């Protein structure tokens, strides 16, 4: 019984600490919650974090299973900064959280098996596969259908771009949407069998950084150093994608990466070049996100009625851009 009481007492102490922690967080390391495991796609960000550390920012990175969990960690104060696209959360849950930096734009490629279809018009009345209900991939396919005046007979949900790529190659799926790695695989494995359909006017945030407003107000210097490190690293990668391999070796990041993963770094960043926001997104990114995510159903209301300040905190980004200039 005494043992149990001790356990309860220590549990109560821990939870009391957890409540008290966010207020006293300034002396602690900056806790960043990733929404995915570290892969070569995270390398750019990992390099930027190393550079922020060189500037004296203490950083503690955690890799979580999904973006939702990263967002919950920030909401509950167990992480200071989260990575993901929490627009729906920001609108529906009145949590004091704001996005302060765009990390990447959606890079997706609608693709069809040329044996059956050639262009958007051929998809009228056909079944397509996308990532999941309410996802960005579904929004893109739906927006393009509206634009071309066609209607799909059905939408299958197949999570994971690599799964959809495999299904295309096996012939189980005839029309879908894949990411840049999937595109490279398809181009390498069967260049004649698949056609990528044109995509115009779709600009939206894939990943962004967000934090509690209190945290942003209390730690403007550390967050500023982080933002500066990321934006300057992005500019460096956009200018020369091969720099990622060199910097990986310099900082000894992802030491367990296999040779296949390493071989993928250069083509991945060469493809990402245009999707890296060189000025951290800001108001312009917020506006195009409003248009995109209201169309996808993640956000409610009309895009023009949404206010940037309800979703973004631009103070730190603007002061950093004032210092290093825009490109």
């Amino acid at each position, binding site marked *: 019984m005494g043992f149990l009481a001790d356990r309860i007492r220590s549990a109560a102490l821990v939870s009391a600490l957890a409540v008290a922690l966010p207020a006293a967080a300034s002396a602690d390391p900056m806790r960043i919650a990733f929404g995915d495991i570290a892969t070569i796609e995270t390398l750019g960000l990992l390099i930027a974090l190393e550079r922020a550390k060189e500037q004296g920012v203490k950083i503690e990175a955690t890799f979580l299973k999904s973006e939702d969990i990263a967002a919950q960690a920030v909401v509950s104060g167990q992480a200071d900064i989260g990575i993901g696209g929490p627009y*729906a959360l920001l609108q*529906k849950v009145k*949590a004091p959280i704001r996005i302060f930096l765009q990390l990447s734009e959606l890079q997706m490629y609608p693709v069809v098996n040329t044996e059956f279809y050639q262009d958007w018009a051929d998809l009228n009345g056909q079944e397509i596969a996308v990532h*999941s*209900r309410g996802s960005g991939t579904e929004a893109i396919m739906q927006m393009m259908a509206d634009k071309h005046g066609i209607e799909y007979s059905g939408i299958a*949900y197949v999570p994971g771009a690599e799964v959809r790529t495999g299904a295309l190659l096996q012939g189980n799926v005839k029309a879908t949407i894949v990411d840049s790695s999937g595109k490279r695989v398809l181009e390498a494995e069967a260049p004649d069998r698949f056609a990528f359909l044109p995509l115009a006017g779709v600009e939206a945030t894939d990943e962004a950084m967000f934090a509690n407003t209190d945290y942003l107000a209390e730690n403007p210097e550390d967050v500023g150093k982080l933002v500066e490190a990321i934006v300057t690293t992005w500019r460096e990668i956009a200018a020369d994608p091969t720099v990622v391999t060199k910097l990986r070796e310099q900082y000894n990041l992802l030491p367990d990466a296999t040779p296949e993963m390493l071989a993928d770094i250069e083509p991945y960043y060469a493809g990402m070049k245009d999707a890296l926001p060189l000025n951290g997104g800001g108001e312009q990114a917020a506006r195009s996100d409003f248009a995109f995510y209201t169309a996808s159903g*993640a956000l409610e209301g009309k895009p023009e009625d949404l206010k940037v300040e309800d979703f973004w905190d631009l103070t730190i980004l603007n002061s950093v851009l004032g210092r290093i200039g825009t490109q």
Partner: protein
Amino acid sequence: MSVMSQDVKVVAPAATTRQALRLFAERRRSFWVVLSLLVLFTAWEIAGRVPISFAFPTFLDTLAALAEMVADGSMVRAFFLTLQPLVLGVAISALLGIALGIVMGLSDRMEWLLAPVFIVLQAAPMAALVPLVTFVYGIGLVAKTLAVIMLALPVIVLNSYKAVRHVNPSLVDMCRSFQGTRRQQIFKIIIPDAAPVLFAGLRLGVAAGFIGVMLAELLITPTGIGDLITYHRSVANYAHMYAAVASIIAASTVTLAVLQWFETNVMRPEKRRS
């Protein structure tokens, strides 16, 4: 004086209502069930209003979300999809599991051959194994049904096997004294006497099947109730997400309660409370 008489008037009916309430509580077990749910839901409502987390909806919001999803038909569609692998998996597990369990109960060799496999399967953390199913069986109905079977089958097999092993030996001896054949012994004595425990195993198997189908829908591909949970979580409709979770818990509880009622009233009338 007038105050006193008023007091008396107020107290007298209160005493009788209290008495009536006590009488009712003593007679009806359902009173305590309702009270326990009432306490739970009130605590939920208070926790949601505090709120303990920005993402924690109140009980009333969740109820409203549930009503909305029932009204627009999405809940019915979701249950239709979720019940397919569940019913299929539980049916296969029940037939196969009871057959295997009885064979293992009757034959030592079959016991040595099969029991270790099912004991290991029952001890294995299935949530870790479910994703492996997709490597062989893909992401369709087969994979999900298999996930249900993986959870339900070991429970049913091991309970059926124990049911047959614990058949009253005097009944078996009696059958032998009356020169009953082996076939008569199995079908007229062993299986009827094992039936209540067989059924209890089946009930546990159904409970495991519910766990299996939710693991499949959350880990393989989101369909049915798993899709409602995943989708509403991704768009931050937390009341809807909690309503979907609560609905599957309610469905499982009601199913098990019905099976338990059937078990105590039909299979084991001697266990019924008078």
